[in-house]
């Protein structure tokens, strides 16, 4: 399982809307040549995609969405791969402006390619998807998607405690210096 985190400058609702606009995947996902919805029921959508990455592949993916929280997908049909599954989890960024996406992707190529090579491809695919999403959002596509104000995350804003950095104490034998949690002794000459 390959994981990656990307931070995009858009509300969670905007990001969710783009990720669940499956028919528009070919507009922004690198290598996605065609994307079409086969059927949809509630938050479950079956799609058909043509992806041209290392190899041209036709696969059917089932998406299960948890509104504005996460999106799971897995391959339901495909000749070239044994398995293709992943998740996008959305969190409101700490600055309350953007969205943080935790992406997971697992590709099982069977005997077609060794795992380390497949993982490398999956890592690159996730990175490229993150960059493409940011680019697509900045291109104005996000503006066309109905954007709801970001949900306020519960922030812990506690006052910071006083922190002692330095203390110099003169003692009978010299100086005792306490610096950032460590104590150093400086003896007076002749003592």
């Amino acid at each position, binding site marked *: 399982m390959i994981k990656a985190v990307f931070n995009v400058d858009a509300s969670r609702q905007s990001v969710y809307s783009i990720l669940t606009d499956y028919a528009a995947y070919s507009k922004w996902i690198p290598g996605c040549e065609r994307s079409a919805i086969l059927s949809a029921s509630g938050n479950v959508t079956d799609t058909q995609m043509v992806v041209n990455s290392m190899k041209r592949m036709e696969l059917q993916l089932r998406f299960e969405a948890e509104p504005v929280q996460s999106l799971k997908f897995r391959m339901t049909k495909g000749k070239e791969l044994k398995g293709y599954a992943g998740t996008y989890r959305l969190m409101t960024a700490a600055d309350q402006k953007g969205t943080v996406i935790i992406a997971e992707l697992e590709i099982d190529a069977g005997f077609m390619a060794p795992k380390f090579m497949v993982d490398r491809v999956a890592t690159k695919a996730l990175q490229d998807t993150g960059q493409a999403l940011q680019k697509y959002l900045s291109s104005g596509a996000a503006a066309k998607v109905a954007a709801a104000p970001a949900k306020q995350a519960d922030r812990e804003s506690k006052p910071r405690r006083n922190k002692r950095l330095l203390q110099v104490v003169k003692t009978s034998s010299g100086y005792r210096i306490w610096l950032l949690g460590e*104590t150093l002794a400086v003896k007076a000459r002749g003592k």
Partner: protein
Amino acid sequence: MSKQSASVIPGDPALLYEILTDYEHLGEWMPRIAGGKLLAREGDLVLAELELKGRESSRFSMECIHSKDKMVVWRPIENKISAAEVRWEIVSTPEGRCRVSLAVDRRFSLARLASFRSGLMNPGECLRALARQVSMFLPDAAPDTEGERILEITETQQGLACWIRGKKYKLVPAGEDQGG
């Protein structure tokens, strides 16, 4: 493979928990960490980004699970980091101290054996660093019971304060003071 260590540290669990979950300031004390940033927070789940000292492409994200005043778990998300899980557990003792245990589980990789001895993976070193950091927030931690206090510098909510022989002064960054 796991490596662990434990230590008794003066201070209350709330202070220790606060330090361990203050990702913006983790770089101040955590060995090998240059800086940190809070990416997102939802309840007890936090997403933070840390930067390692002296390495190229050294930023990595981690999922952090908090159990208030008891436990903090860090799980690096990207596989490039040798630690799979870092688990801090805090148990208060009757003497007003805490027994802190730190367990580091690492991912197995021949290529990463060299980094096993690094600060990030060394629980003993991390606990000593934590103890030093905790002592900075404890008024009684500095050994000032005997002798004359000559100089003291403290970081407060309002900025840096300096005491010279008992008289308090405000420290202002150069350029922000009226004199320029």
